[in-house]
């Protein structure tokens, strides 16, 4: 039995997308009343929930406080029912610790932390259904939640994963595409300035291909940006139709 053909000669992927097309992306902001900011996102079958608290005083040890900027505290978790097989996932396993760290780095680069010295911003993200691109869905959800909380950021942070299969970069990988084991790049971008907030790669990729892959990921991030921006504007229209400002 031959394995799955991830990219056909006609240029279609297993689910019918072309190499540079994203999955269907939809999102809602302000899903919880209690939190300062929250958002729910669906990227294809990957579904994530993000909640933001803060900025508030440092909780726990005072010693953690930074005198010139806010502390960004992140927590990533996956629901037990998020994958095909039901599995208990204790907090603080290696995978989610790593992901937590990545999220922290990403948002430290985007949030204007210098405005809130000696305070703390909490970002909690949970994957409700995992179908590839978990990190990206988390970043995109968290961006919306941070915006929803009214915390100033330099720009949106948009993230998009890109794989490299059969000599062409594939954008926004689904689980089956990820599980083939090819190299995979996750890029978090501040789209207006095109600054990279985080770039992570697993697997080996020859340097000749790197540029193409990053270009594809950048384009993917910009596409994500277009959608997120629309969602934010629609949300604003709903909440307070009069305050919407132009570009």
């Amino acid at each position, binding site marked *: 039995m*031959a394995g799955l*053909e991830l990219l056909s000669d006609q240029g279609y992927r297993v689910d*019918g997308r072309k190499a540079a*097309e994203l999955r*269907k992306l939809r999102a809602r902001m302000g899903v919880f009343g209690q939190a300062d900011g929250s958002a729910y996102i669906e990227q294809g079958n990957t579904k994530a929930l993000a909640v933001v608290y803060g900025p508030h005083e440092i909780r726990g040890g005072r010693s953690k406080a930074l005198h010139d900027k806010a502390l960004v505290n992140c927590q990533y978790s996956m629901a037990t029912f998020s994958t095909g097989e039901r599995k208990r996932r204790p907090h603080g396993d290696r995978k989610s610790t790593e992901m937590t760290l990545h999220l922290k780095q990403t948002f430290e680069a985007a949030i204007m932390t210098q405005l809130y010295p000696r305070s703390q911003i909490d970002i909690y993200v949970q994957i409700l259904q995992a179908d590839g691109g978990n990190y990206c869905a988390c970043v995109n959800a968290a961006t919306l939640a941070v915006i929803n909380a009214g915390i100033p950021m330099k720009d949106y942070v948009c993230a998009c994963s890109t794989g490299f299969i059969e000599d062409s970069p594939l954008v926004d990988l689904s689980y089956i595409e990820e*599980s083939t084991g090819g190299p995979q790049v996750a890029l978090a971008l501040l789209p207006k300035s095109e600054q990279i907030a985080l770039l992570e790669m697993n697997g*080996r990729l020859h340097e000749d291909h790197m540029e193409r892959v990053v270009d594809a990921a950048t384009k993917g991030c910009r*596409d994500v940006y277009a*959608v997120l921006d629309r969602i934010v504007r629609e949300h604003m229209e709903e909440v307070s139709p009069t305050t919407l400002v132009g570009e």
Partner: protein
Amino acid sequence: MSIKKKGFKTVCIRNKSSTAERERKYCKWGEGGNRVTREDECETMLKSKTLLKRTRSGSVLKLVREHYLRDDIGCGSGRCDLAPCGESGSGSALQPDPPAHCSSLCPQPHYIVPDTNVVLHQIDILEDPMIQNVVILQTVLQEVRHRSAPVYKRIKDVINNAEKHFYTFTNEHHKDTYIEQEKGENANDRNDRAIRKAVEWYNDHIQKSLNDSAELQTILITNDRKNKELAEEAGLIAFTCEEYIKSLIASPELVDRLACISDLSNEIQSTKLIFPEHLPLSRIQQGLKSGKYIQGSFRANRDNYLEATVWLHGEEDENNEVLIQGLKNLNRAVHEDLVAVELLPKESWVAPSAVILQDEGQVDDEGEEEKESPFILLGVFSKATGKVVGVIKRNWRSYCGMLSKSQIKESTKHLFTPADRRIPRIRIETRQSSTLENQRIIVVIDGWPRNSRYPNGHFVKSLGNAGDKETETEVLLLEHDVPHQPFSQAVLSFLPKVPWIITKEDLKARKDLRHLDICSVDPPGCTDIDDALHCKELENGNLEVGVHIADVSHFIRPGNALDQEATNRGTTVYLCEKRIDMVPELLSSNLCSLKSNVERFAFSCIWEMSRNAEIISTVFTKSVINSKASLTYAEAQMRIDDESMNDNITMGLRRLNTLAKELKKKRVKMGALTLSSPEVRFHIDSETHDPIDLQTKELRETNSMVEEFMLLANISVAQKIYDEFSDCALLRKHPEPPPSNYGILVKAAASQGLEIHTDSAKALADSLDKAEVPGSPYLNTLLRILATRCMMQAVYFCSGMDTDFHHFGLASHIYTHFTSPIRRYSDIIVHRLLAVSINADCTYPDLMDKHKLQALCNNLNYRHKMAQYSQRASVAFHTQLFFKNQGIVDEAGYILFVKKNAIVVLIPKFGLEGTVFFEEKNKPTPDLHYNEEIPSLTVEGTTFKMFDKVIVTITLDSSNIQHQRIRMALVEPKFIVFGFNFPFKSPMFSSYN
């Protein structure tokens, strides 16, 4: 990931928004981006598939997959100007105006849509240039992909051929042709329905797009009766493949190439079922799991059609073979199939029969009685014996061979005898039997029903008259899968422009070695010179030795068509009268060849050596050289021996020769083996290209001189690239043979009162050196020939994929091939790796990928093996031609092997090996006594032992054109001679370095 189709369930999810990418597209069509219409349209565009799967550990896994539908997929007809088709780039694969009136069934111009089974079984027809304008549906392509990898590759080649006008329609993702599986409908029915739906859509679509009155139709080709009926109900035009092909006016001969798929209901059931049923795959898998059955690849016995072995995968120990005997137990397995076997109870285990038996069966099934092989032996020598219970995967290819015409004049069914003896005869149907009778033809197997003694097949093409040198060479190349078509334009376009000149930039990047006295030493008539040598004295008393190898990787850049072609060919194949080049002649015989007195690019390996051949330092560099002389081995030897010659080149050669002797001494001390194999060379008439004389190759000191330095260069380079790229170096290893391989050698030596130690390479080498018996000078060579046959095959591998690097024959801990890049692709890769490691070139992705490199190694190993086989076959054919002209010859020879009913004789003068039989059909069997221990054979009181000297008469037997044979008959020692029946066996060549 394998998906059980049973669990498929499709659910429609209604969604509201879409991605940015998608959105823009809708804006284009939905006027002004009207949101309401856009979302309505979106709702139907996303489907999701949910499937349940059982994991290995037994738990149930639920998978959900998205399935996007699109409206931007074109129909592929160049004529269509409807929205998506006109816009998309790939829109004109099909001809806008397919030729009309080519079929009597459908006079209008039309496109053809074949279903899966038609593609799978009638790929030969689809490949014919006559068949054009075919739409291959994605559904069909996917099914073909799952069911047969070779057919999938072939159909893809056809699709990529622009002249064939094939188009792949991605129907599963098209919004109008996607269908969901209905309740109670199985996957096959659903796919058939999808195919019909696509055909229906094509008809509608084309009608819509065509304003003019020209009728353009789309025809479904299916052999499935139910599918055809349903299609006709739905108002579609559907034909079976046979109907359609028969209706083609221009090419009636295509009918012969139709695969005969036995439609069981139509066939008159033969009363007798010859074979037991094959088990279904599910039961085989169960059996494999429980250990009841074993899986392995089926290897038919070349000499006995009633015997085969099944080679088990993944078992390292000795017992990795199962013996199969008898027609029923073989159960329709064909050579190279992947089969499941069941072991027989121990008491019915048998020994492999040492008998040679050929299938001389009659044309009809009826007269054939199941003969049980009478040679079943019980006892200590019996091996694991089993029977084939099912075939897991057929590995049928196309076979060359000849037609054995049926005795009935009007019959259209004939038997086809393949050239490869391991393949059974095939029954084919043709109306051209009289023209094909004396031709070499290609045939493909279609199936093997239980009631048929032979498999059914169909004719593919004819190669030409049997016995013609060109035809025979073609057969030989085809049978050994040697790519030998002329180089395509795409390949040639990557050649450097002539006249080729060396530019200043080139010189800057390379070391200028043009002043050195470099010369090359090769066999006479060699035009692809890939190595040259030099040696000079240094001021400190040491010697500088340089090996200069043609810099082929400078001309062949990674990834282009030229490189791909060379990768596929893997090696240059040297036949007796011609050479099948790996790279085009401009490179192989001119620009890369290190000819004398022209400037050429080289990759040089330069050592500083002490007088007793210790390496002091090694330098690798790209260089420009100017060879001062191209010598043959004989010329070089003459120069060395001629004391009156004292020019620089000769002096250099003498120094090299002295060093080489030192090197060899060291190598032998380490335990390197010197083996032997009879090699022959033909003198070929320049006019008729017939062989006029035959001589064994002579070995001079200079041969060994060149060899020593090549080995040294290879070892140095291997070490260097392995140090630099421990994960992806291309190396060559030669595994140590298992002790059991030496059995025959030890026995044979013991029969002559000699002792051979096989515990290590060194012990083997030493005991071979000591094995001399006064009075029989050739004995030592014979022992070495036998020892060669005990050896394993040396193979290429990627260093990241293996841990054992040892080269047994050369007693080196690491080895690779660096010195012949013109004729071996492995050397080109090694050149590239070495160039990267000295910063002379840059790397590229595939070079650093160990899995791709290992795949490449596997191909190279295969090509090398096939090249060797085809070389042997070519020598065999030329030997036959030679003896055809010679008439009857008496020659002295030695017995190489003793079999139960025959002896194998080697004639050193011709390097020829043949079998002398002592029994034949329709003749009384002489009194034979076989003693397995010695081994010896006593025939009517005369005893034959291994290495005995005999005299035989050699003649050519042309009674069977397909298999002309060299006949050997005993002259001495004399006894009553019977008729003989000898298959000709070519001499075994070995290349172990």
